[in-house]
């Protein structure tokens, strides 16, 4: 369980080390990877720390909100621009691990670890997040939905780093919420959901639904969200949506829950989420 440890100061240096070091892994907060190493589920030849890479830190509220991939969850929780525009993302941080974990863990790390239950993923999916990836050849952008390939698998190429998470600006009567259910505090979610609606004259003109821990990847529920568009958030619509979601997910039975319970819970959480959005004030976000 011995490995080298590199602490590059710039992105160029980090990418060069990765190219020159077979079997190296990038690490940010380490709250997932260090556990895997301790359990001998991962045995990297070297770790390349991203904590000191200046380009990966900071939050920039420009045309899009740009969150550096190495921003810690504690930093994210304290950011007014996130709280104001993307409240479901803030909601997902509250039950995330513990304070000690949030002080270390990063937003990019949560996504790159690619757990199907990654807490930050459902909110970012409903906000149409884009991730910025970079290797020595250059940068590319990708919808977060495309980034998740399978449990623990992402679209990152070898030697490529996630540099930022980009969120489009909020406009109109957009409301969003995140709900999760877990057995006890500190446990990963049994099921989590995020919902976003844009309302115009009592009718939903845009909808996004996403769920965690119910499919091999954090999943945007495209078919189900389509049922909301053009409808009011009335009981009949909400009932239809919460039933339909079961057809779009593929939960498994594991130590936390049976597949059947996860399917049931997804519907319940979606119903509660949409009821909350209906109750939200006409302007602004929940």
């Amino acid at each position, binding site marked *: *369980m*011995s*490995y*080298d*440890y590199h*602490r590059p100061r710039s992105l160029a240096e980090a990418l060069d080390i990765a190219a020159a070091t077979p079997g190296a892994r990038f*690490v940010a907060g*380490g*709250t997932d990877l*260090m*556990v895997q190493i*301790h*359990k001998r589920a991962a045995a990297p030849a070297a*770790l390349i*720390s991203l*904590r000191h890479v200046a380009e990966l830190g900071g939050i920039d509220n420009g045309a899009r909100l740009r969150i550096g991939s190495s921003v810690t969850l*504690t930093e994210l929780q304290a950011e007014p621009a996130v709280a104001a525009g993307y409240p479901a993302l803030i909601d997902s941080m509250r039950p995330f*691990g*513990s*304070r*000690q*974990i949030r*002080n*270390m863990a990063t937003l990019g790390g949560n996504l790159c670890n690619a757990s199907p239950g990654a807490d930050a993923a459902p909110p970012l999916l409903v906000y149409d997040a884009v991730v910025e990836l970079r290797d020595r050849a250059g940068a590319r952008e990708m919808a977060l939905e495309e980034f998740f390939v399978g449990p623990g698998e992402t679209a990152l190429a070898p030697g490529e780093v996630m540099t930022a998470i980009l969120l489009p600006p909020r406009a109109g009567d957009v409301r969003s919420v995140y709900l999760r259910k877990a057995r006890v*505090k*500190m446990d990963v979610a049994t099921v989590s959901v995020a919902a976003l609606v844009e309302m115009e004259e009592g009718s939903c003109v845009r909808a996004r639904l996403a769920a965690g821990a119910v499919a091999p990847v954090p999943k945007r529920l495209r078919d189900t969200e389509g049922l909301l568009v053009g409808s009011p958030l009335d009981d009949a619509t909400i009932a239809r949506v919460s039933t339909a979601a079961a057809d779009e997910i593929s939960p498994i039975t594991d130590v936390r829950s049976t597949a059947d319970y996860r399917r049931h819970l997804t519907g319940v959480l979606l119903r509660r989420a949409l009821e909350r959005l209906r109750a939200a004030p006409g302007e602004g976000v929940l």
Partner: protein
Amino acid sequence: MREEVAFRLNGHDVAVEVDVHRTLLDVLRDVLGEMGTKEGCGEGECGACTVLVDDAAVVSCLYPVCEADGTSVTTVEGLFEPGGELSPVQTAYLEFGGTQCGFCTPGMIMASVALLAENPDPSEEEIRYALTGNLCRCTGYVQIVESVRAAAELMMERPA
């Protein structure tokens, strides 16, 4: 691969040459002999190994020792008052029975210190939330929460 790592530990400069794959917890206990910080689960779940790095509570079992380079680390050994007295948080844990077997106590205390530095007058709910990452298998949490509340009151009574 070995490297020299230098940091402030409880107000004193330390420099150690270490294997780079070691954790801060390992080095605190096995190299520097600071045995107050405990290893519970080794997976970041139980909080027994909580220390402060630049005033932020972290789980030292997952903290690569190299990342401590250039930082200021505080462990439970660093909480004594200038005259060698126990700190208010330690005093309150003793008085209010916030410790039983004692294994979780250093981590509980460090998480409590971090909370009170940020929020000097926390509610019960805020205390429970701040201690989510610290598990006690003896007392339950009622006396621990009371201890933190008492520590808050002790600290607020003191002249600034």
